C-alpha cells in the first residue's frame, strides 16, 4: 500500500513520554516511531495501561514528548509555541472522544461551530458549514437540541461533525464506540469509514482487536509503551502476514 510519493501526515521519531508518579518514573510511551500517510485508516491497539492514551495525546499534539520528535504535516511540533500548536491542532486534527466531550450548555450545532470560532471564521461561515455538517451526520432535525437531549449515538455523530468543522486532514478517534451499543457503534464506524473513503486520514485508538481489524488498514499493537508489532490488512486478516516487529533503535 505505501508508496514513496505518498504524503506523510504524522510521523513519530523515537518518541518517549515519561511521567513522574511519586518516586517512580512511568514510561507511558517508550521510544515509539511510526509514519501515518494521508488517507490511511490506522488503529492503535493495546490493553489498558499500554500507553495508547498517551500515544493519542502525543499524536494529537495535546501533549509534548519527553524525548523524540513529532512531525505534523512535516513540521516539528516542538518548535511551536503553545498557542501556535493550539491553532495547528484546531486546523489539522479533529478529535472524537469515547465520552463524546460535547459542551452541555450549547446546542449540537453550537458545539460544531466552536472549533471554527478559534480559527476566526465569521458567523455566516460558521452557520453555513455547521448546517452542512449536521446534514452530513443526518442530525439536521436535532441540531438545536442540547447534547443532554440526544442519544449516545447522536452525540457521537455531533462529535464527528465537530471534528470535521475546520476540514482537518486527520481525524483522531479515541475509543469512538466505547460508550455505544453494538448497533449504534456500527453506525458511527460507518461514518468514519465513509470519511476515510473521502480521503480523510483516520487514526483510531482502541482496546478492541476486532474493531481494529475490521476497519483499519494498519494496526499498531502497543505494549508497555512500545510498539510491539504492526499488522496490515491484506485480503483478510487471518491469512495475512503478522507484520514486522520494529524496534525504534533499529530504525534510522
Amino acid at each position, binding site marked *: 500500500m505505501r508508496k514513496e510519493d505518498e504524503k506523510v501526515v504524522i510521523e513519530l521519531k523515537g518518541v518517549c513520554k515519561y511521567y513522574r508518579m511519586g518516586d517512580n518514573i512511568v514510561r507511558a510511551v517508550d521510544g515509539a516511531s511510526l509514519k501515518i500517510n494521508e488517507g490511511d485508516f490506522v488503529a492503535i491497539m493495546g490493553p489498558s495501561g499500554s500507553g495508547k492514551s498517551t500515544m493519542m*495525546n502525543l499524536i494529537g499534539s*495535546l501533549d509534548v514528548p519527553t524525548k523524540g520528535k513529532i512531525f505534523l504535516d512535516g513540521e516539528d511540533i516542538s518548535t511551536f509555541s503553545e498557542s501556535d500548536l493550539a491553532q495547528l491542532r484546531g486546523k489539522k486534527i479533529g478529535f472524537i472522544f469515547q465520552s463524546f*466531550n460535547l459542551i452541555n*450548555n450549547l446546542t449540537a450545532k453550537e458545539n460544531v461551530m466552536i472549533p471554527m470560532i*478559534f480559527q476566526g471564521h465569521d458567523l455566516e461561515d460558521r452557520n453555513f458549514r455547521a448546517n452542512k455538517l449536521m446534514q452530513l451526520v443526518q442530525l439536521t432535525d436535532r441540531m438545536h437540541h442540547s447534547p443532554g437531549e440526544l442519544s449516545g449515538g447522536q452525540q457521537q455523530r455531533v462529535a464527528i461533525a465537530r471534528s470535521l468543522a475546520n476540514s482537518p486532514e486527520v481525524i483522531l478517534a479515541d475509543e469512538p464506540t466505547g460508550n455505544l451499543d453494538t448497533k449504534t457503534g456500527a453506525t458511527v464506524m460507518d461514518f468514519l469509514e465513509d470519511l476515510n473513503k473521502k480521503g480523510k486520514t483516520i487514526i483510531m485508538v482502541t482496546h478492541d482487536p476486532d474493531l481494529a481489524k475490521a476497519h483499519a488498514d494498519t494496526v499498531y499493537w502497543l505494549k508497555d509503551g512500545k510498539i510491539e508489532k504492526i499488522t496490515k490488512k491484506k485480503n483478510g486478516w487471518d491469512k495475512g502476514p503478522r507484520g514486522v516487529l520494529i524496534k525504534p533503535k533499529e530504525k534510522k
Partner: protein
Amino acid sequence: MILDFFSLALKNLKHRGIRSWLTLLGIFIGVTAVVSLISLGNGLQMAVASQLGVSANELITVQAGGLSAYGPPGSNVVDSLTQGDVDAIERLSSVENAVRRNIDSGRIEFNDNVIFRYVGSVPNNKEDRDLIYEQLNMEVLLGRFIKEGDSGKVVLGYNFYGKKEDWGGKSITPGKTISINDKNFQVIGITDKVGSMMMDNIVIMNENDMKDLYGFEDKADMIIVEPKNKEKLQKTKEDIEKLLRNRRGVKEGEEDFEVSTPEATLSTVNNIIGGVQIFIAIVAFISVFIGIIGIVNTMTTSVLERKKEIGIMKSVGAKNSHIFFQFFIESSLLGLVGGIVGAIFGTLIGFLGTVGMNNFLGTELTISINFLLIFFTLLGSFLIGGIAGIIPAMQAAKQNPVEALKG
C-alpha cells in the same frame, strides 16, 4: 471573535442561573447604594433644608432652647425670650433691626372640619413685617399679605387651599371665613407652595390679633435679626450671644438659647447628610468588596467545574488567550449585570424616595436620571468584574489540555 466570547459567556451565565445571580448580589447592593445615594443626595439636602426652614436670606434667628424638630419654635421652653430681649438686641450697634415673632398652635375649623395648625404672627410695623416676609421667603398665590391695621384677617399656607380633602372637599380661598380657637377670621390670602410642611400649613395673622387670641404679653417665641452689615453675619451673631448670655445669666457653652445664621443651619443640614452619605458609601464599598470576592470565588469554582470544557476547547484549537478571554469576559459580564440590576434598583429607590419625600414632607423635588452617573457605574462594575476574573481566567488558560480533558 470577542463578540463570540460575549455570547458564549452569556450562555454560560444563563446556564448557571441562580448561582450567577447570587454572585452578583454584592455588586448589585453596592451599585444600588451608590446610585440611589447620588440620585437622592441633592433632593435629600433640599428636603432637610426646607424642613428646617433654611432659606437663602441673610437674617439671624434667635430662639430660646434651640432648634427643635418637635413643636413650633419657642414652645416647651421654660425661660422664653421677651420683648425686652428684642429691644436690647435692636440696640446693638451691629444690628439694623430686630423683630419679634410668636408662633403657637391653633384649632382651625372650616366646613365642620377641625384641624390643629401653627399660627404665626407678623408685626404691625411695615418695615418689620417686610423683614418677616423676607425671612419666611413666601409669596402670595391668591389674594394679598397681611397689612398694617388688618384685624380679624389671616393669610394661610398653601395646603389650606391645595389640600381640600382636609376640609371635606372644599378649598379655602380668600374671602372665606375660618374659625381659629372659636374666633372667626377672614381669609385674605393664600401663600404659594414652599415645600416645607410647616410653612405650607401655617396661619399668619397680625401681632395684635395673636396677642388677643392667645393672651400672651411679653413672650417672644422667635426673634428675627437683620444685621447692619450682611458681610459681618458672624460678628453680629456673636454680639447677640454675648448680650443674651449677660441678660440671662448663663456662661459661655451653657447657652439656653440659640442664635442661628442660615449658613450655620445649612452646614448642620450638610453635616447630617454628609453622615448619611459616608454611611452609605461605606456600605457600598463593603458590598463591592464582597462582590469582588464573590466573583473571584464563583469564577474559581467555575474553572474547576469546567476543567473538562477547557480541555475540549483546547483540543479543538483554543489558544490560551481564547480561554483567558472567555473567562475574563464572563467575569466582566457578571459585574456588568450586577451593575445594571443595581442601577435599575438604585434609580427606582431614588425615584420612590423622591416621591415619598414629596408626599410626606410636601417638598417638590423632581428626579432626573443621571445618565453619566449610570454610564460610569456600569463601566465601573464591568471593570470590577473583569479585575475579579483575571486570576481565575489565568488559571483556566494555563490548564494542561491532557489533564483538563480528564475532567
